[in-house]
């Protein structure tokens, strides 16, 4: 795949279709991949990488990149295309300035999952028939591939590309995922249990803003939490309330816009399952206002910018679930 | 526990003077009377209204003034707007003094001094000028070139006219950007006026004003034959803690709040261009 992508990129650079390529760059170890922009065939040959660790969603970079001179080639995985489509819908990207090549997606690996097994001193990771052979300074270790995949990939919602100029490989289908299982599990807990669960999770927050800054839906020119005039600005979670406030409002601001790409949870240095907040909104929207997948198209009205005269009342919250 | 510099003192505003349409000068004393703390010319203090904001201002009054401190403050943000709206008797918090000072007791001693200021840039220099006036014997010739947008925008105009200009051994040259009724003085920008006046290159220069004025004046001074080592300026950039720890005012290996705000131009030249 990597080979095909490099060739495609070189071809599009050569024929002038694009003048830049956004993709992923090799790091120091097997897993520390950095999104990067390539401008020449040489750079592509020496540094471009696409493997089991290239999980970063590059669509958010296109907000900035599409405003530069010329056209950029972006390799988008199925989940990334939803993010990009949503950005088109919100007029955050200029579609014409991006040439999209759809590529097959994951499952991608999560280095944290490998390390959590106590495997350390990692020098190389190889996937042999869905068994990971991990070369470390302490000797070789193995673990099953599927135990090391990213949470977001484990509950993949779609293998379909919703926007592209061309595809490498076959397009997939929207999947029947189990992505709401954990939300449901929480819903079925008692209020006290839910409260304890979230307090434990959110108290880990160090307000590094990684979740916000990586989020393709969070592209505000100035975030309310950075704006001293907004009245809610804060830099560090000085109090448990502020942890709640930040994550509730952030989830609310992306409600109906979040494509469930899972980047927030992937990048959280404190392993907070932030995607559950977004999925809760998605699940509610689906069940109360009809199935809606943000980013699936560029024209439909977002659920929060829309209404039905016979929508349910807010009291529905009081009537269902566990108190 | 020892007092921490981050815990401020209380200052009482005992006098407010409208200097120009957007500059007011505030007189601050400690609640018990007298100065809140001592300082040297060029040093700064952090003034704050809790809940509104805290910001660094240069102390405008001379250390030789034993009764009070003064701050000339231009209205430009949230805190300064608040300060401009307050009445006499209001308490504020004050901490400092912060930063270095103009080397009035070392390098500047015995020198002929040329002060060049534009607009509110006079505020930090006023402290030095009055210090020099009070210790007149320690210094040589004193010349002040001061310009502003208009006559109304000249800070401390009354003091300049009534005291400085009547002083022997101090020469004051004023200029305003555009002609104005009731103004028979010089009209023109400060950098040009400096060149016109063609000051002796033996003088040590202290300059403060808008960045663009400093840039052109410095160029002009160099044309006249001044060396960077002869010219001092003062910067007031994004200071927060005042003690070189919070990291905000870091430029290269210097912290403006601690190593500055007074720099000689040759020192500035060694810093990365991030100010």
């Amino acid at each position: 795949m990597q080979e095909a992508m490099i060739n495609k990129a070189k071809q599009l650079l050569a024929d002038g279709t694009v003048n830049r390529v956004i993709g992923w760059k090799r790091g120091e170890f097997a897993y520390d991949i950095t999104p990067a922009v390539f401008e020449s065939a040489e750079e592509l040959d020496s540094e471009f990488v696409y493997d089991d660790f290239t999980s970063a969603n590059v669509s958010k970079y296109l907000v900035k990149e599409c405003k530069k001179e010329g056209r950029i080639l972006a390799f988008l995985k199925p989940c990334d295309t939803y993010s990009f489509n949503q950005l088109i819908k919100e007029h955050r990207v200029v579609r014409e300035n991006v040439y999209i090549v759809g590529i097959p997606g994951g499952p991608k690996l999560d280095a944290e999952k490998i390390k959590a097994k106590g495997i350390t001193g990692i020098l190389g990771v190889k996937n042999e028939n869905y068994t990971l052979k991990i070369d470390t300074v302490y000797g070789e270790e193995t673990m099953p591939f599927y135990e090391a995949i990213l949470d977001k990939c484990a509950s993949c919602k779609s293998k379909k590309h919703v926007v592209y100029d061309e595809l490498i490989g076959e397009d997939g289908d929207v999947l029947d995922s189990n992505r709401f299982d954990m939300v449901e599990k929480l819903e079925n807990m008692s209020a006290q249990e839910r409260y304890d669960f979230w307090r434990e999770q959110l108290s880990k927050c160090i307000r590094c803003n990684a979740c916000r800054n990586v989020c393709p839906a969070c592209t505000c020119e100035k975030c309310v939490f950075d704006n001293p005039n907004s009245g809610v600005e804060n830099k560090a979670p000085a109090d448990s309330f502020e942890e709640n406030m930040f994550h509730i409002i952030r989830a609310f601001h992306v409600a109906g816009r979040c494509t469930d790409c899972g980047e927030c949870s992937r990048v959280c240095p404190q392993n907070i399952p932030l995607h559950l907040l977004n999925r809760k909104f998605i699940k509610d929207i689906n069940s109360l206002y009809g199935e809606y997948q943000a980013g699936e198209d560029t024209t439909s009205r977002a659920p929060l910018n829309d209404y039905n005269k016979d929508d349910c009342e807010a009291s529905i919250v009081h009537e269902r679930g566990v108190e | 526990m020892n007092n921490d510099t981050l815990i401020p003192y209380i200052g009482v505003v005992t006098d407010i003077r409208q200097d120009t349409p957007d500059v007011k000068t505030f007189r601050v004393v400690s609640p018990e009377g007298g100065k809140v703390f001592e300082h040297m010319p060029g040093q700064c203090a952090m003034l704050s209204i809790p809940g509104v904001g805290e910001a660094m201002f240069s102390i405008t009054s001379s250390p030789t003034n034993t009764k009070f401190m003064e701050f000339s403050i231009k209205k430009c943000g949230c805190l300064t707007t608040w300060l401009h709206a307050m009445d006499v008797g209001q308490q504020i918090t004050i901490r400092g003094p912060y930063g270095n000072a103009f080397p009035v007791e070392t390098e500047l001693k015995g020198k002929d001094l040329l002060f060049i200021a534009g607009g509110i840039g006079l505020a930090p220099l006023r402290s030095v000028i009055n210090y020099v006036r009070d210790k007149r014997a320690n210094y040589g010739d004193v010349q002040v070139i001061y310009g502003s947008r208009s006559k109304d925008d000249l800070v401390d105009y009354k003091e300049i006219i009534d005291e400085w200009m009547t002083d022997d051994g101090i020469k004051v040259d004023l200029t305003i950007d555009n002609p104005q009724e009731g103004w028979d003085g010089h009209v023109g920008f400060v950098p040009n006026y400096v060149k016109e006046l063609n000051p002796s290159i033996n003088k040590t220069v202290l300059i403060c004003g808008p960045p663009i004025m400093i840039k052109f004046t410095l160029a002009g001074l160099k044309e006249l034959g001044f060396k960077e080592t002869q010219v001092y300026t003062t910067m007031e950039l994004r200071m927060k803690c005042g003690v070189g720890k919070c990291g905000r005012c870091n430029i290269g290996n210097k912290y403006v709040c601690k190593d500055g705000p007074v720099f000689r131009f040759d020192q500035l030249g060694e810093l990365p261009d991030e100010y």
Partner: protein
Amino acid sequence: MQVNENKEFEPLIVAFCCNWCSYAGADLSGTNRLNYPTNVKIIRVPCSCRVNPMFILRAFQRGADGVILCGCHPGDCHYTSGNYFTRRRMTLLFSMLDFLGIERDRTRVEWVSAAEGAKFAATMNEFTESVKKLGPNRRLEDLRCRKQ
């Protein structure tokens, strides 16, 4: 609010009322001298759709024990559609607060028309009672703001 052994817990209720229906409804319950507890403090907004979830969280942060949002009946919004948006926003917000384990009876949306002075008073009596039963808001307060 403090729980004092000698004193019954008195919750603080913030009520956001739209100018055209519910605020007028509240006025009407005043005109008709229909009592409701002093715990309820009303904030006037042009339309229920003006109420940002941040305002609601802010109220809880600062020590409110319950927040109620009142607007025109669906279909009667002075601005045609404002309360329809309110309904969706608040449904989702309340659902999220519930998801985070915040007691669901601390929040409520009620449609009160300009003519429903009696309903306004009854709603406020009932809501205050139900919040009183929950006790002080502890799960969504800012400790720094707690009254000593």
